[in-house]
């Protein structure tokens, strides 16, 4: 049995951080940039300054919201720990050491790949397609995911128009509004702008999805030292305050959306200002966030598995490993298999394949050590006795295939490996090509539903006056 009990803060410290978050909402307030939302909050007892668009949320309301909102549990039919690929702007090509803008074809490839990577449970398009008008690229991403993904999906919604279109597509897939309600079709990542602000369009989109009880992950992005204090505890308190601001808003809306708290916090290189994707402090704040989310009874949705390295070297393995292992050890429900490379520079299919393999190893860890009469093997140990070996035992034969087997990782000897060295990028490339050539994307919805989705897309293209 696994007990994930790595903690970087004590219960008292968690309570102190959360107390600070409550005080921030009550004493500093939060900027909701939509008068409709401010009026709603005022009715529920917030002190609102309409001119500044700031609402001060009383602690009692925050606590009431926490007590009443539903946590997003992990889908039962998916392994608990493996989350979605990241969505970047560019595709990285290792052979040429170049990056280029993502296309619809890249999106299709990523969906196809994720369909066949057994340790990644949530799908995305990996990149924003830029061979379509960028302002409605979210519609194209949703179209492809709804049509072709065999897994739960996560995607972006840029505008309220897109939110309505996505809802319509999701209704087509599920069969109607009643079926859509409470399903996990649209997993929206609500992104407050740190510090302490939610834009009008975010609030509008949250309202649309919230009223349909779609899962909402709060994803504020406090950056230590720039959009948050330079100390970790303060930034975590701010991040939690922003999480709670979204939660309170949804509660006041009467939404039954299941929620995950957390979000991708960031640190930066204080010398250059460059935003970091891997750093020990980043792991620490995410661990503290997981602890805070769990303390409030919510699932945590933090980022991990990212790197600042631009290639598939030691640093990239360690960066990802450090953050993923720590979150796993702390019992985080979502651990990233991100496909990201170079501090958010781009998406990389090869990396995703390797990360899938890493996920397989983590899955073995999650299964733990089975302890029963057969696995304790006392009779076998007595039979083999002193100085013998277990190779010829039936018990060994029976369990010989229990062990994890590598796919792109190597277990070759040093001489063999270096006699014909094939770097991990190349092995991963071959696996990507094999999956993409052997499998074509297949519609996961009926022809009629696909046609309806297409109709919604072309209607939007026309409405936007784009082609």
């Amino acid at each position: 049995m696994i007990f994930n009990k790595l903690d970087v803060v004590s219960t008292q410290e968690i309570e102190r951080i959360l107390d600070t978050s409550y005080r921030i909402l009550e004493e500093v307030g939060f900027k909701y940039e939509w008068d409709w939302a401010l009026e709603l909050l005022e009715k529920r007892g917030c002190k609102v300054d309409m001119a500044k668009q700031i609402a001060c949320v009383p602690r009692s309301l925050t606590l009431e919201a926490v007590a009443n909102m539903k946590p997003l549990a992990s889908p039962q039919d998916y392994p608990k720990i493996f989350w979605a690929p990241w969505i970047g702007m560019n595709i990285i090509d290792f052979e040429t050491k170049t990056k280029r803008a993502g296309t619809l074809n890249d999106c299709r490839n990523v969906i196809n790949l994720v369909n066949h990577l057994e340790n990644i449970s949530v799908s995305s398009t990996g990149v924003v397609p830029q061979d379509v008008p960028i302002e409605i690229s979210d519609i194209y991403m949703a179209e492809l995911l709804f049509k072709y993904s065999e897994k739960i999906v996560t995607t972006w919604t840029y505008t309220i128009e897109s939110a309505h279109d996505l809802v319509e597509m999701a209704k087509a897939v599920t069969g109607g509004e009643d079926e859509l309600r409470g399903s996990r079709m649209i997993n929206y990542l609500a992104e407050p702008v740190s510090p302490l602000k939610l834009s009008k369009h975010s609030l509008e989109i949250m309202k649309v999805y919230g009223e349909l009880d779609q899962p909402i992950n709060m994803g504020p992005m406090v950056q230590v030292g720039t959009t948050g204090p330079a100390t970790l505890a303060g930034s975590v308190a701010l991040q939690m305050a922003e999480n709670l601001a979204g939660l309170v808003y949804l509660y006041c809306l009467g939404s039954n959306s299941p929620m995950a708290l957390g979000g991708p916090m960031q640190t930066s290189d204080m010398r250059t200002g460059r935003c970091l994707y891997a750093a020990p402090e980043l792991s620490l704040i995410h661990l503290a966030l997981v602890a805070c989310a769990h303390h409030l009874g919510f699932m945590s949705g933090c980022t991990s598995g990212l790197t600042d390295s631009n290639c598939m070297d030691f640093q990239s393995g360690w960066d990802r490993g450090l953050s993923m292992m720590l979150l796993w050890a702390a019992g985080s429900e979502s651990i990233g298999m991100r496909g990201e490379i170079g501090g958010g520079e781009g998406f990389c299919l090869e990396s995703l394949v390797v990360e899938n393999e890493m996920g397989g190893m983590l899955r073995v860890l999650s299964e733990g050590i089975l302890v029963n009469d057969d696995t304790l093997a006392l009779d076998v140990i007595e039979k083999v006795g002193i100085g013998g070996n277990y190779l010829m035992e039936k018990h060994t034969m029976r369990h010989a295939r229990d062990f994890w087997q590598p796919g792109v990782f190597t277990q070759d000897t040093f001489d063999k490996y270096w006699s014909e060295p094939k770097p991990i990028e190349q092995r991963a490339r071959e696996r990507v090509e094999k999956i993409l050539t052997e499998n074509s994307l297949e519609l996961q919805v009926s022809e009629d539903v696909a046609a309806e989705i297409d109709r919604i897309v072309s209607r939007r293209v026309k409405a936007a006056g784009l082609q």
Partner: protein
Amino acid sequence: MIFRKLKVLSDDEVVKIVEGAFRILRTTGCRFEDEKCMDELESAGCDVDRSTMVVKFSEDVIFDALDNVPSVTPPDDLPKVRVASANKGMILDCKTKKMRPGTTEDARNVIKLCNSLDNITLASAGIVSSDVPVQAVEVFNIGLLMKYSEKLFNQWIYETENVPVVMEMAEVITGGSEELRGSKFLSYMLNSVSPLRFPPKQLAISRMYAERDLPIAVASMTQAGSVSPATPAGCLVLCAAELLAGLVWVRSLRTKTEVALGALTQVMQMRTGRQLYASPEQTLMFLGAHQIIRYFGYCSGNTSFETDSCDFDMQNGWEKALSGVMCWAAGCDMFGQAGFLFDGFSMEQLVLDNEALGMLSKVGEGVLVNDDTLALDVIKSVGPGGNFLGEKHTMAHARDAWRPSIFQRVSFEHWAKSGGMRIIAHAHDKVNEILSSKELSLQIPEDQAKAIDDIVARRVAAVAEKGAC
């Protein structure tokens, strides 16, 4: 505050495994391949068969050992992440990607690196110098480490004849046999050969250390599927049995020796029979063994932080994290070998490992929670929509963060334009930088150094003479 309490077994499961080990020690026993052990273990109350050298253990005898053999307390001034530099035969030539035999020059260079790398806790000479007679190489390396290492060190000893020589050298440094007694300056690892055997030479060497109250690590090297059951739980039963048997023997010596327990657990590649250095099952067993060792009440170590990759690639970094970070999260006291690369030593790997461990050490500092770090006043003064860059509080903490020494944080374009190098290139540069800019300097007075040199020379000459006959 950090709580490293990752567990993979419930308390009941730990008890089940330990009860299994007790049963094995009662029914099957363990072979101590050394005559003297028979007397020692018999006097401790074990059931001894002198013809087969098989010893069986009652519960009382085991509990007596658990109650009376003290655990090593790691020196408090060592950082929380404790890692030893590896001890290997060959060394990697980074340019040609060939392993070559080590030389005395390499040994000096590895010590120099260990001195300069903050996160390597225990130094080593890295390699077995091929230009020193093999039976004397351990003495030679220890001589170098005593003279030049700024840190405690780790050097395996395989030759019984070398032990008195090493003791003599240690006495030179500590000031005499009484000063050496009970110190942590030297320690030895008693390693079982699974299943359930302790070989004669190791027992004889351990006895010499114990007689001087020097610490001993009792370690079990099980390998799932070959010398141990193919199921992790069964492997742990065997591991626990071997550790307890070793502990009872140490108890039977009636010395003040302190003990740490270790799991050098391995997994066999089931396809070919090859030994693996990293696998998820191995990590699970490290974690399980750690819990069992803690249940016994001892300091625990293992061979985590290793990789099956032959390259400095993503697999290498990931596998190091898989076992290293998990064992850290479980509160292990001592990790495996830094600088280890496919059963050889690599100076570049040592530098990479040092960098990686720097990050882990920083995580170990945890999140400081107080009025200053919670920064409520600063958050108030910045308010919604502002930024923190101009705040005094930010300035005051701008240098808190961990800074890499070789890990890269540059844009993709910059990286590609400057040659698209993998991290190994930077590690190699760092090795060269340290080796060319630093000098080895004596860490002990000259007269002691002279005495050490004389002892080493005497041993080397004795071995050479014996070889000549």
